[in-house]
């Protein structure tokens, strides 16, 4: 091969280099543009979720209602993305108070919509029909959820949770639970798991939720929580937070007041989660009798 071949090859190489550089610069420019668009879209979504979060948080009940009836009460709701499907419910009745914790299917925007619609429906049942029996409330909510969202074509809305009704005149605490997670902590540190109906709200229109009655004594604490708390991955071996860990935290200082206890669980949860992403919406509520 003569010198002209190498000269031509060299020229071709230079052309190739120039063309590839041009292409890479163009690609980089195009990526920068797309990045700007994504950033804008991301900011819009973030702003929208922040505002939605404020709306959903403003719908959370006033804890002071419970403090009228009980020694202390406190709750914490930590939605996975600022909005979500976990909610607590507190509403005073003619002779007491109804309170509980509900966890809607999934998380994020769809779960938030289900959560809000469920809360509004419960308020409607309680105010217009004056229902304060948790069993009746759950049976009606179950029927309504099933009828509205879950049919032969789709099944999109389910809730788990537990609802209590306290009558101050009878000093009686009754509850219904749809796979709800609740514990009773005695001042001695002993813990009882509360029974529940092993069905979700909205699954089957014909489900009859059971009504349970509880005997509580002064100093007892009632703890309600969503599975987002115990299912969170974290710790040194990236394991679930677990119900056992929750029980250990509770039984360590059983005489601590509800407000302090809620703060402590929140702190332990944050330490456990560490840099891991929050896997689900998290909520918990503690009542001290």
């Amino acid at each position: 091969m003569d010198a002209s071949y190498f000269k031509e090859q060299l020229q071709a190489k230079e052309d190739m280099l120039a063309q590839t550089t041009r292409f890479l610069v163009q690609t980089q420019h195009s990526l920068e543009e797309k990045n700007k668009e994504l950033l804008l879209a991301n900011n819009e979504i973030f702003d929208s979720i922040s505002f939605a979060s404020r709306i959903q948080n403003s719908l959370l009940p006033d804890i002071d209602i419970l403090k009228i009836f009980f020694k202390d009460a406190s709750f914490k709701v930590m939605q996975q993305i600022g909005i979500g499907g976990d909610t607590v419910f507190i509403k005073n009745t003619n002779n007491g108070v109804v309170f509980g914790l509900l966890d809607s299917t999934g998380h994020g925007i769809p779960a938030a919509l289900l959560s809000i619609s469920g809360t509004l429906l419960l308020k409607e049942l309680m105010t217009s029909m004056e229902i304060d029996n948790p069993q009746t409330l759950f049976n009606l909510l179950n029927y309504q959820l099933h009828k509205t969202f879950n049919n032969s074509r789709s099944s999109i809305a389910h809730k788990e949770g537990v609802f209590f009704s306290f009558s101050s005149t009878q000093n009686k605490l009754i509850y219904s639970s749809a796979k709800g997670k609740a514990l009773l902590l005695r001042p001695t540190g002993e813990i009882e798991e509360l029974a529940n109906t092993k069905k979700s709200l909205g699954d089957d229109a014909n489900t009859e939720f059971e009504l349970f009655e509880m005997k509580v004594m002064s100093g007892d604490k009632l703890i309600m929580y969503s599975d987002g708390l115990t299912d969170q991955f974290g710790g040194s071996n990236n394991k679930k937070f677990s119900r056992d860990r929750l029980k250990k935290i509770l039984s360590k200082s059983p005489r601590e007041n509800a407000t302090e206890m809620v703060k402590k669980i929140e702190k332990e949860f944050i330490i456990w989660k560490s840099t891991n992403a929050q896997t689900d919406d998290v909520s918990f509520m503690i009542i001290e009798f």
Partner: protein
Amino acid sequence: MTTLSFNNYDFTLENKGPFSSLYFNKELKMAICFADEEYIPIDNFKEMFLHISVLIETYEIKHLVFDKQKLRTFHQPSMEWYFAVWKPAIKNKGLVNHYKILPKLDWFEKAVEAGKYEIFQKFSKEILTGIRITYINSVEEAIECVI
């Protein structure tokens, strides 16, 4: 060497140029073109493809493999000629698949991508349609696709 063997199929040498060589197998209706140097000047490139055209018409070649593993220079004018002149001319002559084997070099692949992008900008999208172009890793892989 006048024959080469891949997967027990013998390929006969059809043309040996200074920068490339062309083999074919009648049974498989397949031709293989090897780039033998780092760079093929455009005139030799055109000559080679005109040999391929004759081969396609003579032996009803359906599958063409272009092994570019020795190439180190991507030549845009040659590629434009391939897309704008050779491909339309060979259309409807029976060639179905064009298998390409690139050097295992990221920068070369990027240069090919850049070249294709410019062709795409310069000509209509139609230019990239017609013969099915598939990037493969070896001649054997092309034969596996055909048999």
